[in-house]
């Protein structure tokens, strides 16, 4: 029996679902190995007897909460894909503003028509079995995950920082150009794609460990003299770190 797969979207850009369709070279092989039974963006048929459910997007409305509980009940294995599902993602930027303020700014007097809550990762509401982080999700990592699952092997995310992959690729360090890059505290697995294309890491895959965060925070303060506010603003972009102070 092929595993029955579903792909769902909560509040987000659906870019992670789209990333699956961008696996052009492997898509037909994947479709051969699994049966996709529920994927609103790509197909009309919808079934609810699901082995593995992939969810992109954050929980950001009362409706999302009901949906994610329904997905959890319908799926034997639930996988969060992308920064929104794993960290709350860019949606969490509103969590640092007063609800009346961000709702009123966009919807004015009609804010009540459109209910919303603080943006949260799906693990804040239901049990999540696996997380594939990133904004967007790294499609090669998705493929590695699917292979592991089909082979019955344990899947693990890298437990080291983006800097490791960045050095491996031979990139000059962005700090040498005066750029504040969040690679030292961010979980690897993206093959350091942003520094490779000349841009700073924005921590979209989340903090790799509290120790890495503490060490990087100390370096940023004492060696590079970066104001704490600036580091926090960077770490908040995709919800990697939401506290009011660095450790």
């Amino acid at each position, binding site marked *: 029996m092929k595993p029955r797969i579903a792909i769902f979207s909560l509040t987000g850009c659906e870019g992670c679902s789209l990333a699956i369709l961008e696996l052009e070279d492997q898509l037909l092989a994947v479709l051969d190995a699994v049966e996709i039974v529920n994927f609103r963006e790509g197909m009309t048929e919808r079934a609810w007897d699901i082995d593995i459910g992939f969810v992109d997007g954050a929980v950001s409305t009362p409706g999302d909460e009901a949906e994610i509980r329904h997905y959890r009940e319908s799926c034997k294995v639930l996988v969060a894909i992308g920064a929104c599902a794993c960290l709350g993602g860019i949606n969490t930027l509103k969590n640092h503003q007063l609800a009346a303020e961000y709702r009123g700014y966009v919807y004015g007097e009609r804010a009540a028509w459109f209910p*919303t809550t603080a943006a949260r990762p799906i693990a804040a509401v239901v049990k999540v079995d696996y997380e594939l982080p990133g904004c*967007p999700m790294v499609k090669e990592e998705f493929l590695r995950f699917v292979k592991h699952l089909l082979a019955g092997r344990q899947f693990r995310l890298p437990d080291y920082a983006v800097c490791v992959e960045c050095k491996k690729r031979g990139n000059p360090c962005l700090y040498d150009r005066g750029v504040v890059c969040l690679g030292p505290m961010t979980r690897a697995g993206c093959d350091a794609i942003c520094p490779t294309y000349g841009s700073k890491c924005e921590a979209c895959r989340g903090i790799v460990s509290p120790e890495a965060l503490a060490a990087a925070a100390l370096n940023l303060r004492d060696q590079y003299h970066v104001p704490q506010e600036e580091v926090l603003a960077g770490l908040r972009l995709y919800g990697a770190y939401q506290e009011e102070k660095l450790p």
Partner: protein
Amino acid sequence: MRNVTIDVKHVTRLEGHGNLAVRVRDGEITSLQLAIVESPRFFESFLRGRMYDEAPHITCRICGICSVGHTTASVKGIEAACGIEVSDQTILLRKLLFFGEQIQSHVLHLYFLAVPDFLGVGSVIPLAATHPDVVRRALRMKKLANDLCAAVGGRHIHPIAMHVGGFTHTPSDEELLGLKRRLEASRADLAETAALFKQLQVPALLRDTEYVALKVTGNGEYAFYDGEIVSTKDPSPTKPADYRNRIVESVVEHSAAKHCRSPQSPSYAVGALARFNNNHGQLHPAARNVAGEVGLKAPCRNPFHNNTAQLVETVHCIESSIALIDTMLQHGLKAEPCVRPQRFDRGVGLAEVPRGLLVHEYMLDDRGRIENANLIIPTGQNLANIEADMRAIVPAMLEAGSSKEEITLRLEMLIRAYDPCISCATHFLDIEWVD
């Protein structure tokens, strides 16, 4: 059949969540809605207080399918607000990245979202068994478009290297040459695609519609990256900064996305067909040939032909990408620093993204922080027009004795023909701008 009730929760093969609800009582439409039930997103709120140069990376997260389009309108809006003039090389690279996304988006829509309706299946998945060559061709074209985006921007979904003021990466000559060869080879796939679409039975619908698009005035290029706002009812050009003279927004309760009208019409259309109707004279000759082959003639007022216009534009974008790469190879690309802001003020950036005219407007404070932002999305502009088309389709099909199932499928096909992008459209702004 005097009474009909149609309810489709979460119309499939659409980007985002939309519900279709139609009520006909005693032969009269009593209500008809394309309800936009996507979660509210609050992007304008996210932007407030962030630095000017973060806007493109934040706003591209509005939508995975059109993230290059949002990045483009965003850098243009911020650069207008900062008095930044980018280099010719930057504009060439932006256009190549932009064409990559147009091709990717159009191919995705034509093959994955629209074609299954015409072949009578629920998705592209069964086509892998019945029409494997069609699916392989679609994947090959889509991959080429993605690779084009990746070479310039690092990746298609949420591009990395494209920033306010320029690029932080330039593709190598080898990469460009490799892409050029594949683009040339894709002409065979385009010919097959045209042959496929020629066979498909496109439903008929003619309704007087205003088509709004950018146009490069004079004998300019087919407008994607540059241009001023024109329409089929008012061809006099409007400058980007004055977009409010052409787009009038209003709030309706059943849609988390605003509806739009123009000074001339209660609803209007944007997108590939709107661009074709306003700019067909500027198409690449190869694209014009394909238009002739599949029978698309301007002005075309059948919204189902938006698919056909997307096919014609795909040909244009492939040919234009080849020409852009030739120019780059001829002049040689070099690493350039991003241009720095001259001032912090207010600016508007427009672009013709896959689904139509996109507006990004920003107001910056004197430290370069974003004070206000307004984003007008193509799908939001099309919603009122989609409903107006449905109001024309339902009585005609009832008259012809069509079944409820036939009417439902036709309405879903209509919605898909507009290629709506609902994640994009679900936010609107209700603030007073102080000049």
